[in-house]
């Protein structure tokens, strides 16, 4: 089938916070040959529910199948493609960069411009912590590259839709027992 040009989609998935869910989602991608660029998982306001944020590349038909296949998983509550709706995306990046005396000033200035924090300092290196969308983080990496980047660690994207949608559900105290009280649920690390 002829789809549109492949592009990156940010897909937000609400899942039951049960063991094995992460592997169901990851298994789906490997079994069907979809290309997953990043995946991040965290608990939501309701501790029995987790949110996964997936970045997936593909044309319109691939993404449609990805959405349907995700929805078909029994533990998936809701699947939402945020790509074409108003939303905010952020990623956290830690960078350890060479910091020779002649470069230290410039690195700090650059970090300042990107509102990155210095979280570790040695005689010869800095570790910077930066948050932002993909474009901003790529920009920072490009500027630091000439100094010599030793290592980069990124969290993968998280995303949230803007506006009223996020206010529909009011924050309320958790009525359900905590996840850790439920012997069936051992979290994703299990």
């Amino acid at each position, binding site marked *: *089938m002829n789809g549109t040009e492949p592009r990156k989609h940010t897909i937000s998935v609400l*899942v039951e916070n049960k063991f094995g869910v992460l592997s169901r989602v990851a298994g789906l991608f490997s079994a069907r040959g979809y290309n997953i660029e990043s995946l991040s998982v965290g608990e939501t306001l309701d501790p029995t529910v987790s949110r996964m944020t997936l970045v997936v590349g593909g044309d319109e038909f691939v993404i449609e199948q990805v959405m349907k296949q995700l929805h*078909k998983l029994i533990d998936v*509550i809701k699947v939402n493609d945020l790509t074409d709706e108003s939303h905010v995306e952020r990623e956290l990046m830690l960078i350890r960069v060479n910091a020779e005396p002649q470069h230290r000033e410039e690195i700090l200035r650059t970090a300042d411009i990107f509102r990155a924090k210095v979280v570790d300092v040695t005689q010869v290196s800095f570790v910077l912590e930066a948050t932002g969308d993909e474009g901003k983080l790529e920009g920072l990496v490009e500027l630091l590259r000439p100094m010599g980047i030793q290592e980069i660690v990124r969290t993968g994207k998280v995303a949230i839709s803007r506006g009223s949608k996020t206010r529909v559900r009011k924050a309320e105290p958790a009525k359900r027992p905590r996840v850790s009280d439920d012997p069936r649920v051992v979290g994703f690390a299990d």
Partner: protein
Amino acid sequence: MEEHVKLPGARIVLECIKREGVDIIFGLPGGAVLPIYDALYDFEGLRHILVRQEAAAGHAAEGYARATGKVGVCLVTSGPACTNLVTALQDAMMDSIPIVAFTGQVPTHLIGNDAFQEADNVGITRSATKHNFLVKDGKDLGPIIREAFHIAITGRPGPVHVDLPKDILVKEAELIWPEKVTMRSYNPNYEGHAGQIKRAAKAMLRAKKPVLYVGGGVISSNAHAELRELAELTQIPVTTTLMGLGAFPSEHPLSLEMLGMHGTYYANMAVHHSDVLVAVGARFDDRVTGRVDAFAPHAEIIHIDIDPSSISKNIKVDVPIVGDCRRVLRALVEAVREETNAGSDGQEARRPWHAQIAEWRKTQPLRYEWSDDVIKPQYVIQEISNATRGEAMIVTGVGQHQMWAAQYYKFTHPRAWFTSGGLGTMGYGLPAAMGVQAAHPGRQVINIDGDGSFAMNSQELATCFVEKLPVKTVIINNSGHGMVRQWQRIIFKERYCAIDLPGIPDWVKLAEAYGCVGLRVTKPSEVVPAIEKMLSTPAPVILDVCVDKDECVFPMVPAGGANTDMILAPPTREVRDRAEKSQTGF
């Protein structure tokens, strides 16, 4: 509903299975599930059928499920038993058969320790099931088993696996049995979209060359009566997939029989030239479509399916309708009636189409060359069909015999045809037939099998004998892996490799060794008397029919070819060259 009754976990499992309305389970005991077998010792109301290999328990549960419309249940132990079962789970997954499989697991404190007969059961079955569970607390047994049965039979049916650690089976726990299953993450959609149904009705009436393409979904949703009503009302011809055989009577004037790789010439031609194709409970499998860009290229495609992910997966659909086949077809019949009252029924404009189909039917019927000396396999199927008047429960293995059975048996009813369609599991026949026979003790159950396929689960003859399941097996014996031979002959230039099964074992002696009756025929004139003798024998029978080993299944669409590239007769050099060009792999 909480009953505040404390029972050992094993007892809870049996109690829950019984409450789900199951009367037969297929299983094989072992260390980790011994507590369940101990509870079974004096448990009333469940028949346990002891199989000889775990995959057979799974296939028998599949046969039972398909024959009854209920959930089939199997029970095996941990480790190797679970890994043996995986084939049956995947088989049920691909053919959407509702089964619940229980496996034993090592005690919870040993999980992950590489304990004896331990395997990561749920990890292994995850992709082979619709859903699976590992029970970690006795009080969850009831709710989990309830959910397992609910998931298996609702929406698009499929296999569900429940893994039971031994300590959970031993410890006492409260029996919790929720009256109703509610799951926030699982709510299949049954009602089709009214607007889409109206669009579909209009398209069907407007069509000049419409075809109904019907799959196993019509059988699992019990929609055969609605299908027939719609077809007769609109006079639209019906072709079925391998899994859909029996959803529409083979000898109905509107029946085109099976389509696809080994479908009839007229079914494939009709689909190819159609202007509206109505897919009902079918999934555009590659064995049906052939080359997708050449499949029904002129048709507006309407697709009715319970599974949204089936829609526009392989072929772009113009009118998708997500819902239960039965409900959607019922609504479609009403919508067609309304539209017909409002205007023309379009029958006049379709006359040339029916004439064209009749022409295709006349010029290229299903056919084979008769021989007085050697038995033609197609003839055997025809005679089985005649002898049973299309009323038997027909089960098959996988291979040439399966395709001949699909082509030449005249199906009259749904839920009377059992075959491994999606996964193509050789060895499916005998164990599935046991499940069908156990569900319907009074019915004639015939397993049409191949000598290669039957050998993969022939140990189940012991189960048939001991459990008094008088399954009749007809081995279409061509002394080899016939379908592989056919491919090597037509596509791989007759470089025959690893296909010979030269007359071993002696099936008659094997039948006798298992306490069953063995018969053999080698001449065409012996076929009918042997079938009659087989059908009148009250015990399990093997009828070994030595057939022409050079016979091929035709029509045949080479893999990767378009359905109009059908090979209709034994290949000449030119045909072989053409097949080679369009071949893109298996």
